[in-house]
């Protein structure tokens, strides 16, 4: 091995390896587009689903094409995360410039089809404003959709009254007008920050 050409250049080679590593690391986080949310462009597949809406009829993602869409998983018996998130999204979309209000749609996907009937879902989303569509489906359909967006949900054992908690993603996935995954909004963003992102996204898309 002492004749190996690599031995003699140990210093140079390790330096090269280091430089390569830094390049790789910086290359992955280089693009800064100043979103408040997390930029997920290219990381996730476009919006696609076949679910049931709160009128009980089947819908696909295509029917909502042309709008900026916010996808959120939850359930109507949810004690804190869902109401907070939906209220926040509502505040964010209410404050949009009037021209853009109709261009942003929130899709609330209930992952608890056992309890969330279309009627119950309809009443629930109505409470949180007009720009929200309630969606649900059979469990395998919901599992497929959750898997597509690399999230999951799980049910707790029901108590004596049949109540149970559902664990689900706390993030909101934002898709642009073409249905491409663009942003991930974490629970710590304020309505104002969300609104800024939505305006920027809605505007860049129309240009």
């Amino acid at each position, binding site marked *: 091995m002492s004749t190996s050409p690599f031995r003699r250049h140990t210093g140079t080679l390790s330096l090269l*390896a280091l430089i390569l590593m830094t390049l790789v690391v910086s290359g992955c986080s280089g693009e800064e587009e100043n979103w408040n949310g997390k930029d997920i462009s290219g*990381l996730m597949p476009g919006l696609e689903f076949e679910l049931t809406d709160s009128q009980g009829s089947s819908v696909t993602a295509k029917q909502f094409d042309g709008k900026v869409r916010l996808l959120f998983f939850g359930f109507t018996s949810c004690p804190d995360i869902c109401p907070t998130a939906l209220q926040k999204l509502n505040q964010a979309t209410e404050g949009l410039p009037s021209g853009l209000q109709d261009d942003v749609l929130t899709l609330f996907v209930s992952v608890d089809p056992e309890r969330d009937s279309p009627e119950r879902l309809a009443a629930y989303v109505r409470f949180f404003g007009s720009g929200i569509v309630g969606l649900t489906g059979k469990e395998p359909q919901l599992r497929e959709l959750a*898997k597509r967006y*690399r999230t999951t949900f*799980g049910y707790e054992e029901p108590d004596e009254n049949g109540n149970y908690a559902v664990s689900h993603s*706390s993030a909101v996935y934002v898709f642009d007008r073409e249905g491409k995954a663009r942003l*991930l909004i974490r629970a710590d963003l304020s309505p104002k920050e969300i609104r800024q992102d939505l305006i920027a996204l809605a505007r860049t898309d129309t240009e």
Partner: protein
Amino acid sequence: MSLIEYLAPYDFSPLTVLSFMLVLGFYGVGLLRMPEEDRPGSVRIMVFVLGVLIAYGVMQTRFDYYSQYMFFVHRGQHLVLHHLGPILIALSNPLPVVRFWSRQISPGLKSRLRPLGWLYRFLQHPLIASVLFVGLIYFWLWPPIHFDAMLSRNLYWVMNWSMLIDGILFWWLIFDPRPPATTPSLGYGKRILLLALVAIPQMVLGAMIVFSRGMVYDVYEVCGRAWPMAPETDQLLGGMLTWIPPAMMSILGILIILRRAMREDGSFTSRSSQVGETT
């Protein structure tokens, strides 16, 4: 859930299944066709198959689901992919099978495959191998990169495969059965040094994760956990899995190499001195 559902892949990857099938297939056919005297014993065969199967198990069964939605299970997955599986594969010494197949390759193809050999020798340079071994752990656990890797299906596969391939390269460098006295394999002293060197940064990283107060890996919070568990507990367990078992494996590796060195110590020097006496 039935047993079959637990054994079925959560996120089916045809390429992964095919690769594992090819590895086992080539190993099996090689075993059957090779001359009796070269064939490894049954324990070695079992160790090899076990190493391959546990790596497959954490990638293409229900285990993968829990690895995607629980930080500590994910650390367990990488422990198998980067340490345990490759250690078993390297210790089983599949060299006779590799030699058998390399004899079957035509000289024309062999010369075309030569760049692969260069790449291999470059990656197996002790410094590069250890920087790569530790660097990959740090790279994929760097919070923004980790976040993206858990969100993107493609990145996730690149992450797991890079861990497995690098694990095999590194542990093969360490457990190469060819005696360094007579072959170009790495000297035992250097192997021990590498094992000690790579243990330290892994312990530092593990301790950092264990003792960090805030939530470092919040992607599991964002995407929902497989079952309700306090994020702090999840992170603590994951940090411990990054810290303790890899350090233990380094020590175990050092012991194995020491034993080998002590056994060979006499044999090669005495033979050369005998040669010296007779001439």
